[in-house]
């Protein structure tokens, strides 16, 4: 399984903070997004692929369509606003 976590405005917009997707035939982040839209609807694809959304795998920022492995934690979130 791949654990997907969502934060801040993205969490609120999609109404979930954590979901799981099967790791079968999932090789990259784009596959994770496809799985999520199949399960939860096209709003998810729109939200997760929107221009400023950042992605982390196992709590490290990744760029582009990074590879994903079974057991990974994939996080989607908007730009940070701490400090």
């Amino acid at each position, binding site marked *: 399984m791949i654990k997907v*976590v969502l*934060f*801040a*405005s993205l*969490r*609120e917009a999609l109404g979930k903070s954590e979901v799981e997707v099967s790791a079968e035939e999932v090789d990259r982040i784009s596959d994770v997004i496809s799985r999520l839209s199949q399960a939860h609807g096209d709003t998810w694809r729109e939200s997760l692929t929107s221009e400023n959304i950042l992605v*982390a795998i196992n*709590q*490290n920022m990744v760029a582009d369509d990074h590879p994903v492995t079974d057991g990974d934690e994939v*996080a989607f*979130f*908007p*730009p*940070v*606003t*701490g*400090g």
Partner: protein
Amino acid sequence: MRRRICVQETVFDVAEETREIREASHKVGGIATFLGVVRDINEDAEVANLYLEHYPGMTESQINKIIDGAADRWQIHAVTVIHRIGHLLPNDEIVFVGVGSEHRGDAFAACEYVMDYLKTQATFWKKEQTGTTSRWLSTRQTDVEAAGRWSSDETEEV
């Protein structure tokens, strides 16, 4: 080097934090600190309260990487980063960064570097309640530029 990272709901004690940085090494001759306070006005709207969410685990790991970046660049003996989360009110202390060094130039530069990267690399998100509406804040372009000033190959990975 002594490092202390706290992500917490509770208040912190600036005097105690400063004292601990001083005592981290007898080499510490100067301590630069920054204290951030929640303001009651943001972009002309009156702020009633602030909610801070973060990504537990990743936040601490990102702050560690930021401190690594500072330690690579300057001679520093102690760094403390404290960031509050949860519900905050105007005038509450929200963030503290303190750096102890032998040289004041190193303490100042490292402290400002850590603050600049906290703003753009640490996984915190602020939601602001103003009157009856609330909104998630967006990153300020000036903060992106501030962090950009320090950038080199090493830090772009932070």
